[in-house]
């Protein structure tokens, strides 16, 4: 499997009308096909206009106002953005979110790749293992699991009970401790390594076995084979997973909301960016400011994705070069 992004790129290229056809000025048949296509796309166009692009533009405009849902918006220029510069809770939420993303995503990817390696190549019972490891990914975002997490890492929760059996008594309540609350959420994210693992498994299957055989004949050990064959050939998949996991991690909301009881506590230790945005916009109805926050989130995600794409030139190898 080539990364889906690259796939999409080449797919558009394939589907583009050939230059020959483009030169011919729209025949009646082509006109009819045009009309049919736009009819098929009509719902999507409406959605794009009213649910996606319209709101993106609207939120940019709102970010320059003091809209509060109750009163008509006043234009206040860059005031919201200035306010962001000296909003300590916002700065804290950025630190929390970035810590979460930059700690949990590498762990998720490492675990996913490690397990995919352990499962690959004709292991008996592979589908069963795959399902077991995937299950947490499926459930991980649900409120019920966040509730469970609160209990597992509570002061007399499962985790401390197990530690107690091992002789560690008097451990703190992890969820309620400002120093550890974020860690429990990182563990929750790492727990859902199953979906990138499945993508890695699909990628590993694309690597021809002959490469390994040839390397083995030349006397390469398992570590050498991993470093010189598996890793380079897998870089497009690693890249794809990295982008996906980062974007997902930035949007984490419900886990933090439930574990902290909707406050981002203790002491703002789990105040994720999205949670702060929600609290500003939908409990304080400070919608102008929330729109500015939303735009900044878009800029952060787009910026990091762009950085990743640029950096990828130096470490991602596509088979065709």
């Amino acid at each position: 499997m080539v990364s889906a992004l690259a796939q999409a790129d080449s797919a558009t290229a394939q589907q583009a009308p050939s230059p020959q056809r483009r030169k011919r000025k729209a025949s009646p048949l082509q006109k009819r096909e045009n009309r049919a296509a736009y009819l098929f796309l009509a719902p999507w166009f409406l959605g794009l206009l009213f649910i996606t692009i319209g709101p993106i533009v609207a939120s940019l405009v709102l970010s320059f106002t003091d809209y509060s849902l109750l009163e008509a918006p006043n234009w206040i220029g860059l005031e919201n953005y200035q306010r962001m510069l000296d909003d300590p809770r916002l700065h804290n939420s950025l630190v929390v979110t970035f810590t979460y993303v930059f700690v949990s995503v590498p762990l998720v990817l490492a675990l996913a790749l490690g397990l995919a390696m352990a499962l690959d190549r004709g292991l008996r019972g592979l589908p069963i293992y795959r399902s077991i490891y995937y299950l947490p990914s499926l459930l991980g975002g649900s409120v019920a699991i966040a509730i469970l997490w609160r209990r597992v890492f509570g002061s007399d929760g499962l985790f401390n009970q197990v530690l107690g059996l091992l002789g560690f008594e008097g451990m703190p309540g992890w969820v309620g401790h400002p120093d550890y609350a974020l860690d429990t959420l990182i563990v929750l994210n790492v727990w859902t390594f199953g979906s990138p693992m499945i993508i890695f498994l699909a990628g590993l299957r694309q690597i021809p076995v002959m490469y390994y055989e040839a390397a083995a004949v030349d006397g390469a050990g398992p570590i050498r084979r991993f470093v010189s064959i598996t890793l380079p050939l897998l870089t497009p998949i690693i890249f794809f997973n990295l982008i996906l996991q980062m974007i997902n991690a930035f949007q984490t909301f419900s886990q933090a909301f439930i574990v902290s009881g909707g406050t981002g506590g203790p002491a703002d230790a789990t105040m994720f960016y999205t949670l702060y945005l929600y609290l500003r916009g939908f409990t304080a109805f400070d919608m102008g400011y929330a729109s500015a926050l939303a735009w900044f989130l878009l800029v952060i995600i787009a910026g990091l994705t762009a950085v990743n794409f640029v950096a990828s030139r130096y470490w991602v190898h596509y088979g065709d070069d």
Partner: protein
Amino acid sequence: MATTEMVLEIDARRKEKKRRSRPKRLLQHAGLILFGFSMLYPLLWMLSSSFKPTALIFREPGLWPTEFAPGNYIEGWTALTHPFHHYIINSVIIVAGAVIGNLLACSLAAYAFARLTFVAKRTFFAIMLGSIMLPVHVVIVPQYILFSNLDWINTFYPLIVPKFLAVDAFFIFLMVQFIRGLPRELDDSARIDGCGHLRIYWRIIMPLCLPALATTAIFTFIWTWNDFFSQLVFLTDPDLATVPLALRQFVDSQGQTSWGPLFAMSVIALGPLFGFFLAGQRYLVRGIATTGIK
């Protein structure tokens, strides 16, 4: 060519299996099973705790309840203003609407992208791909304003209508990929027989798309059932609460006192997900492997 490759690969796998010694393989299995078990342990513990008296949940890390309290389920079911099935019905209505909406709207758009040529197709395709990555938080405030102007806050419309407008572009992409794999000769011969695009879409492409449609339906079900953020924003009336919102009410109102019933209702909330997971594994794995969705 493909078959010789396969034979070679099977051969190589066999050799590799032989090469790996039996005890080493057993050790590998033991490790994988142990790891899997410890991953699933919290889930199993929650299931068992849902049958324990609350006091015991705080003391017993084991899986087998020493004292059964099936009353947790009855207590949990009736703990909130409405019996729990009220919230399940709310969730089911939203999920059903979302599934139907996604199946119809996304497949229509996918047909156009996969089979028709039209003006500005590449631009629109790029926009569609870009919108996949768009975080919901960026558009939620204006959406809220729009829906409140339509008087749709505290109705199910904000959660269902966008699906009929193909907002989940993931699934358009998934179906485009799938439709491209179908032979074009089928369309051509249908067109020669006088079929229009709508007939080709409905009679030929849709039936062949069943696997992609199944993947879409299952993922839409899971995402919508799990969705918390947009339901939290658009449904503030406790009567309209869905299962996740009901669980949240439960946590807030009961605090630390009744974890048994809370766990029981959490198990109920996870049940359908687990069921769909068992039934739809094939489609889930394929869906993830082709598009990378979660």
